[in-house]
């Protein structure tokens, strides 16, 4: 399967709502991160949660975000991070226009 992003790419997590079940917590929406791992494609939860096939499958990525970017009042180290799994259809390219 073709994957849109590779390790090291900077991405933005889409800042949009979806009233269906989706696997993107609000605290990461709109934030920038770095792809640290390309994982296997999975069925889309927006459909599979309702017993629909959820196809085509979408690639899942591990995205690393800076804690200090997520929380303006973060008190830990500058280099503390969150790593989270995000489906490709929730990621936007910031290197060039999508």
């Amino acid at each position, binding site marked *: 399967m073709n994957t849109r992003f590779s390790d090291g790419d900077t991405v933005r997590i889409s800042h949009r709502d979806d009233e269906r079940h989706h696997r993107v917590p609000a605290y990461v929406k709109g934030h920038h991160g770095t792809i640290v791992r390309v994982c*296997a494609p999975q069925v889309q939860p927006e459909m*599979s*949660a309702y017993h629909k096939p959820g196809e085509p499958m979408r690639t899942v990525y591990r995205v690393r975000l800076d*804690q200090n970017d997520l929380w303006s009042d973060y*008190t*830990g*180290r500058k280099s*503390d991070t969150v790593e*989270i*799994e995000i489906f490709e259809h929730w990621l936007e390219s910031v290197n060039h226009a999508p």
Partner: protein
Amino acid sequence: MPHDHDDLTPPGVPHKHPFQEDHPEPQTYHQLLGVALHEVLIEKGVYTMDEMRARMERIEGVSSETHGARIVARAWLDDDFKAKLIDNAFAAIKLADMDPGYAEITVLENTPSTHNVVVCTLCSCYPRSLLGRPPAWYKSKSYRARVVREPREVLAEFGTPIPDNQDVTVHDSTAELRYIVLPMRPAGTEGWSEDQLATLVSRDSMIGVARASDPE
């Protein structure tokens, strides 16, 4: 693998969004008294978090016989196995004649420079095949909300203060991957067997809220 939480929509409600009640926080007088007593006993050194953890794990039937503890002990003894585990945990665990349970099981190695801790902020995804049933606190709204926002404070409350020169990486398990933490091997365990080492690996140390226990 499809997402594996059950359809939790209450009966009679149109199927719109999966629904799950959160575990309530302690609220009643006696619940709060229990929390306060626990904190005082820890503070006064009557018992430690490690002792309480061992007791709770015994009550809940979690033992060093869990696959997770064995995997960690083997990784401490065998560098080649450890390298395979970090590269492709599913394949490595299969080769060791154990059932990884999930295709994308991922092993996160703690090092002197980075401490890893796992949460599922959206629900309670957990590597049951390797660690058994998730503890109630793992599913609580408080843990899920706080550990991504103030991990150092939460870890300190678990009896695991993180030094200022060590990074904390929080792993939010939101889709199909499952994680176990590979804690650092405690000092003073040179020459120990896999069975002996596995006794030092608590469930909590593989979630990342504790370190492996020190030998007595």
